[in-house]
């Protein structure tokens, strides 16, 4: 394997140069928006000049981040209060569902699973009107409780899918051994499956965290004025047309920061969740 590549490299040095140049050019293009966000947010409003948009400030200032932080702080808090319970509950339910669907197959389980998965792909507009009416009728409209419930329910398909595929890899002999030792449904789950579930939980938690943090449609339709998540606040700030560009960019950066950090630190697990979304990967 290595020898053939070495030979390939020796034969075609120019193609190697070409490969690297294309990759570098595309990478620079992908990073342009990041550069722009940083350059703009380190400026003061009077430095944000359209003619010098691409030029970094000579005297970088943190004032924009300060302003953005003040604008977004309550919504940042809302998003945290939303993401933590919604992620935890949907991960636990997904793990149990995945356990049942992979190891306790019952008649019709596959069809029910397919019907469940469909819920992950629908445009949520198709359930939004009855959803709002329903939440209103049970007093969960306009508050974080309603948003948490919604994210848990519509998160069930993907969390179930990831855990089902994860547990399918666990050899059945391991479970049968537990059964012989007298362990029942919960015994096997608790003593056999859960201890080896950590990578599965990491994938699911990262995925749900990212999805819920980034979500907008439910946030803008279900949350009340005091429970708006950060994406809605960012959109309001950017759409108001009176907020300066430097503050907008700093706000975009702050909104992106948590999920970006997770991606940079735990990218491997993030990609695993990503590919699970295409069902088989």
């Amino acid at each position, binding site marked *: 394997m290595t020898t*053939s590549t070495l030979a390939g490299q020796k034969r*075609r040095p120019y193609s190697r140069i070409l*490969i690297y140049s294309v*990759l570098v050019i*595309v*990478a620079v293009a*992908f990073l342009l*928006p990041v550069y*722009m*966000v940083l350059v703009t947010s380190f400026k003061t409003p009077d430095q944000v000049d*359209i*003619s010098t*948009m*691409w030029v970094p400030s000579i005297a970088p200032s943190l004032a924009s981040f300060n302003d953005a932080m003040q604008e977004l702080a309550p919504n940042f808090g809302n998003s945290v209060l939303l993401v933590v319970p919604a992620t935890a509950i949907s991960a636990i339910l997904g793990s*149990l569902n995945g356990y*049942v669907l992979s190891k306790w197959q019952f008649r019709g389980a596959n069809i029910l*699973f*397919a*019907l*469940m*998965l*469909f*819920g992950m792909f629908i*445009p949520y*507009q198709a*359930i*939004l*009107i*009855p*959803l709002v009416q*329903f939440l209103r009728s049970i007093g969960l409209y306009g508050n974080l409780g309603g948003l948490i419930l919604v994210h848990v329910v519509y998160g*069930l*398909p993907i969390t179930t899918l990831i855990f089902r595929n994860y547990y399918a890899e666990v050899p059945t002999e391991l479970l049968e051994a537990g*059964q012989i030792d007298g362990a029942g*449904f919960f015994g096997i789950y608790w003593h056999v499956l859960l201890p080896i579930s950590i990578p599965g939980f990491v994938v699911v938690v990262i995925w749900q965290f*990212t999805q819920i943090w*980034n979500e*907008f*449609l439910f946030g*803008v*339709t279900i949350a009340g004025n005091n429970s708006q998540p950060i994406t809605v606040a*960012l*959109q309001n700030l*950017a*759409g108001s047309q009176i907020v300066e*560009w430097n503050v*907008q*960019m700093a706000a*975009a950066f702050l909104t*992106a920061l948590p*999920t*970006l950090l*997770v*991606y940079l630190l735990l990218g491997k697990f993030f*990609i695993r969740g*990503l*590919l699970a*979304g*295409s069902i*088989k990967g």
Partner: protein
Amino acid sequence: MAAQATVSSAPPRRRRFNRDRLTAILMILPSLIFIAIFVYGFIAQTGYTSLTDSNALQQLSRLPANFIGFSNYNDMINGTLNERFRTDMVNTVFFTVLFIVTCLVLGIGLAILLDQKVKGESIFRTIFLFPMALSFVVTGVVWKWLFNPTSGLNALPTLIGLPRGEFRWFISQESTLNFFWQDVPTILGFAVAAILVLAAVYFWIKKRSMVAAFVMAGGLLLVALVTFGDPNSLITLERPEQKGFNLALIALVVAAAWQMSGYTMAMYLAGLRGIPEELREAARVDGASEFGVYLRVVLPLLAPITLSAMIILGHISLKIFDLAYTMGGGDNLFIDMPGLNMYFLTFRGQDFARGATVAMVMLVMVAFVIVPYLITQLRGEKSL
């Protein structure tokens, strides 16, 4: 399968086993009930609302909404007041096609480049994939600034002494490939006919089956119907209404592809890594060039991934909301989408019936793409 089940639930532990099986079903039941209500119950309710005249006035009067059949759907296609819906449908088609093509080309290109055992592969991969971790709202806000017509991307060429770009990006009002809404039945007819004819040719070459003849006959019949019939009379809208490909959509495609092409790349890369080196080596031994190896060996093996990627990307673009909302704000109809129309009809206009109608149209479009995909994916899994 059935035989195996009877063997494994042999007498000694049978009792215990059945009780556990019951526990298992009880444990998954709440989730199933939630999905049944929140997905299927609510869809049914939305479907019903779309067949009524429900709106704010009706809700205030506390009287039940009147059942009016499919007239909301008819209004969307033919009513003078619902031009926005028709613009959105045309926008969705152009956006979806361009978005999918861009992501596939970029995705497979980057994946093949990264598959050449390049140094720093993980750094490149991280760079191409990081936009996936962002919210579409962040993407929209940032790209809106980059698309500022007097600066942003347009100012980039001036940094190396070239003239400034003139394209107005998402606020461009230009359009091309123009046609009239009344032409849509004809265009759709020919499009479907073309697909049928191509499918027939494919069936004939690949399988030599007689199905090809029937499909071909169907395709030709459709061509005849469209040519000699009067398909445009299907649209009863009186005023000629011009539609086209709004160039402003290019801005939306750039931003969306920036966010999603890394995902396509990751899918292809996973596929490429699954191809055994021996296969490529065999082709090389047969004298194929590196390019030939890709063309004849690798690409055909990636076809199923291309299909999966098209479906995943397609269903995302059909229901896109956040990005169009952030960039267009609901006022810029040149980049408007059905998801936005639904939101404004329902939550600003309190026109629940029409909002539900748009939502159902979106659902049907997505289901058309997703349902066959789910069926084939889960069927192929039977061996598990």
